[in-house]
């Protein structure tokens, strides 16, 4: 069942999922779908409800209402969960006195998987020697790799990773990106959460963005990006804007005296400036502004930042919980 290519991947469906802790609604009527063969980023600022959602999907937290299924079934109803879903949660912890390899052996035993599989995965995640040390001595990056190895033990069709790049160095992040790409090319369904868009921006195909427990955007990253723009700095932005308008190119003043031009054609902007007799102090393609969009979609209304203008007021003890969570974020 797991080896047949046709069986690779499985759809994750979340429908009206809600979780309340006392009077606080951590996840609110959340609905989204995660497709096989694609990497989906599950994004939202800290405290948005990502971990809670994933834990409900994995049967660790009981939802207040709604459903969350993988391949049509709730996690607890899956016969061999390790071969269907592999997951590494944010606070994946290891007994400090147990070696990483032994940690995997414990999990392999529970799923009836052979020990050879353990060594295979340690090899694959690049920690075969280090995994023989006691886990108490591991760096964050090492823990992430071990968590990933644990998730992949049963060669699952679906991979769910909660903040996997936390604590990874740039080299590790690049490695993870390649690794996830490789897995998704096998047709697996991959859901990766992050509180930072730029961390996963180059990795993911789709995004599900939540804020305050609610869905704010769902779709392909390419749809999110919008039209490319160019960033230009000159002595007289207003005059350049006028010259550009003549050339049929729209622009608007940026926040810091620069001009944001609605084109990807740097050469055109340079030529127009030359013809207008204006000096060009800076000219570059502006990154599609996903980061700003993400910020706009989420941070502005983040209940956890105490700026509760449009957000439901969070009780004060909630902040204490968040503060605690911040430690492992």
């Amino acid at each position, binding site marked *: 069942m797991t080896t047949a290519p046709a069986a690779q991947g499985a759809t994750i469906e979340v429908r009206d999922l809600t979780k309340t802790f006392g009077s606080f609604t951590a996840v609110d009527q959340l609905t989204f779908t995660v497709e096989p063969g694609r990497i989906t980023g599950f994004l939202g600022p800290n405290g948005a409800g990502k971990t809670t959602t994933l*834990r409900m999907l994995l049967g*660790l937290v*009981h939802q207040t209402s709604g459903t969350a299924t993988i391949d049509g079934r709730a996690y607890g109803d899956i016969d061999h*969960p390790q071969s269907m879903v592999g997951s590494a949660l944010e606070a994946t*912890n*290891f007994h400090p006195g147990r070696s990483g390899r032994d940690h995997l052996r414990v*999990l392999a*035993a529970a799923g009836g998987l052979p020990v050879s599989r353990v060594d295979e995965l340690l090899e694959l995640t690049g920690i075969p020697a280090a995994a023989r040390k006691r886990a108490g001595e591991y760096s964050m990056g090492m823990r992430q790799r071990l968590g990933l190895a644990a998730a992949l033990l049963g060669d699952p069709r679906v991979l769910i990773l909660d903040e996997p790049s936390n604590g990874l160095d740039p080299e590790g992040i690049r490695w993870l990106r390649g690794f996830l790409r490789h897995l998704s090319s096998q047709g697996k369904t991959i859901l990766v959460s992050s509180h930072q868009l730029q961390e996963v921006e180059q990795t993911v195909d789709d995004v599900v963005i939540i804020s305050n427990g609610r869905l704010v955007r769902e779709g392909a990253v390419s749809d999110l990006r919008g039209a490319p723009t160019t960033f230009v700095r000159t002595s007289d932005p207003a005059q350049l804007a006028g010259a550009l308008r003549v050339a049929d190119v729209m622009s608007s003043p940026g926040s810091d005296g620069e001009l944001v031009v609605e084109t990807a054609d740097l050469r055109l902007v340079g030529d127009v400036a030359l013809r207008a007799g204006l000096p060009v102090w800076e000219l570059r393609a502006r990154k599609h502004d996903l980061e700003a969009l993400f910020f706009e979609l989420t941070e502005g209304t983040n209940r956890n930042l105490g700026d509760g203008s449009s957000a439901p007021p969070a009780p004060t003890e909630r902040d204490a919980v968040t503060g605690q969570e911040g430690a492992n974020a």
Partner: protein
Amino acid sequence: MMVNSIRSEFLKFFTTRLWWGLAIAMFFGGALFAVILGIVLTLEPDPEAVARGQQVVGTPLQVANSVYTAGLTIGYTLTLVIGIMQIGSEYRHKTVSSTFLSTPRRVRVMLAKVVALLGIGAIYGLISLVGSVVAGAIVLQARGADPFPGPEVLRALALSLLVLGLWALIGLGVGILIPNQVAALLIAVGVAWIIEPLAGFALGFWEFGRDHIVHFLPSQATNAIVEGVTQGGSNAAQPLSWWAAALVLAAYAAVLSAVGTWRTVRQDIS
């Protein structure tokens, strides 16, 4: 499958350093107490004290049983600790998430823990008994007492194993009910060593308590199972028969594990 879950539980126990530390403590605890009791119980009795009923003279069988089970208090305290840690360390180090991810049927996980703990209790019981029987037999022999007065000694030994396994289950229940492992350990040992003996002592002065409550206390029931020399004066409680006492202890273990399992199934793991 159940077998896989049980194997996983055994692996959890034997892949940390705890297991050999406890094995050493079990062995030497059993040996040490056997030696001490072996010397104390073979002292010449003081005839006056016996006449006043302040000192009880045991039969050779009772003496041998007492010597060989002398380390039982240490032993069941340690299996209690094992039981608490088998679940408590999962909460403490948050490995409980991984456990329930690999086996989402939480009742099965808890059953696997119960089975594994009975096994571990028996293994550690054997280690403790090897220590106390070897050391105890040498001391009894040296002091001219009979180290093996009859086959009933074997029964006491077998029942000690049962006791050790049951205390591990009591630990499991306590470990689930008090999720803070350190608090669970302190409370459990505090109750077993201080509060319960004090309660037993205090209840001894109250006729109803002495007749109907005291022998249902876990450590009293434990002592009744292995039938040593009855200590204490005229107001000491009369112990239950060994099988009734075993049932009492099993009931503690069953109730605590069942309540613990019920809580675990309902709990959010976050």
